């Protein structure tokens, strides 16, 4: 039950795009066609879930494990390696994305043609690094603990991303048929659409 609550909260209530503002560049950039939005959503789900699991394990088994106690003028202070987390996580994510790309290229041509172009873009998608940091360094902010809760949270967040980017692309595809004033075309009207979607998603707030 608690896992369901975490997943539901991550998908709808604390939606990654509409509520936390992660991953906006691909959200506005790739969402003009339904098919590419779906591929992007799938690629992001895959990468966020696995890279969050990896960075959780690294954070708890490497960065927090090796400590050093120094005698300073303020007394004994114990340091660990957690100050390196930003650097370590971005490297882990970048190399993981690279690995996934090579793997997919080798073993599944249709999957590569569907996701291939989007994989390099994901390294700079701040949702990936954002969720990795939120579930480790800032874990008290989102209130999940333990490996499985974190995994479910990451899966929920990334599914939320996929759901929202797909709905958004469907709306934008529909919007092509209507005349829009020139200065509102493109990004501005997309932002207003996102505003209305965010208002709709507030409705889920009362359910958890």
């Amino acid at each position: 039950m608690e896992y369901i609550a975490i997943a539901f909260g991550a998908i709808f209530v604390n939606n990654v795009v509409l509520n936390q503002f992660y991953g906006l560049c691909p959200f506005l950039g790739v969402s003009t066609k339904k098919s590419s939005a779906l591929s992007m959503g799938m690629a992001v789900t895959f990468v966020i879930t696995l890279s969050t699991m990896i960075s959780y394990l690294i954070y708890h088994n490497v960065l927090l494990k090796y400590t050093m106690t120094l005698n300073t003028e303020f007394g004994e202070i114990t340091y660990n390696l957690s100050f390196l987390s930003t650097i370590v996580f971005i490297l882990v994510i970048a190399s993981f994305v690279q690995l996934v790309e090579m793997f997919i290229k080798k073993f599944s041509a249709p999957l590569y043609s569907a996701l291939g172009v989007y994989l390099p873009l994901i390294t700079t998608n701040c949702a990936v690094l954002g969720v990795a940091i939120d579930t480790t360094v800032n874990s008290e902010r989102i209130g999940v603990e333990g490996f499985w809760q974190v995994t479910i949270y990451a899966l929920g967040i990334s599914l939320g991303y996929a759901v929202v980017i797909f709905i958004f692309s469907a709306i934008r595809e529909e919007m092509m048929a209507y005349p829009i004033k020139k200065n509102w075309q493109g990004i501005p009207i997309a932002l207003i659409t996102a505003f209305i979607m965010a208002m709709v998603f507030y409705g889920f707030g009362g359910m958890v």
Partner: protein
Amino acid sequence: MARRQKSIKEVFSAGLFKQNPTFVQFLGMCPTLAVTKSVESALGMGAGVIFVLVMSNLIISLIRNFVPKEVRIPIYIVIIASLVTILEMFMKAYTPELASSLGTFLSLIVVNCLILGRAEAFASKNNPIRSVVDGFGMALGFTGGITIIAIFRELFGAGSLLGYSIIPEQYQVGILVQAAGAFLVFGILVSQVNRIRMNKEERSEVA
């Protein structure tokens, strides 16, 4: 070189107006929307971006002739991540409230496309002085952009400016300081910036 090289002044003003990262290029949109709840956190974010972008442009343009082309992006990312870590530790030590109000977005400066974009598009091809000027102009343009959004959101949403309350509570539009309001304010501002730019283009075509 066929095309005339831009003067230092043009390099600086490009970031402020013509290629403003917030309103024209739409770079680094996540912090643009996330930290503009209050003017204070927008200015803090801007200061952080100024530091990281100027330093990363400087370092990257200093090493631009030694870096092999194939591995340049990972090297840039490591440099930027180190700078962000320095900034993070500094902010947590000296301005802890600001650091906690920026939250994860402080670390997310690493993946702000503005910084990697300038490294790739400008600093890797230009000398250190021009790169620093470009970085400063771009970062200042970014700061200006997010500060304008933050002024609208804080003034009309929370009725205050830098913490001083100005508008009484019954006239405030509470939705603007919530997550959804960021999209609304940013969308309206972009459309108005577009209108001004289009008017200007039309006028210059007529003349």
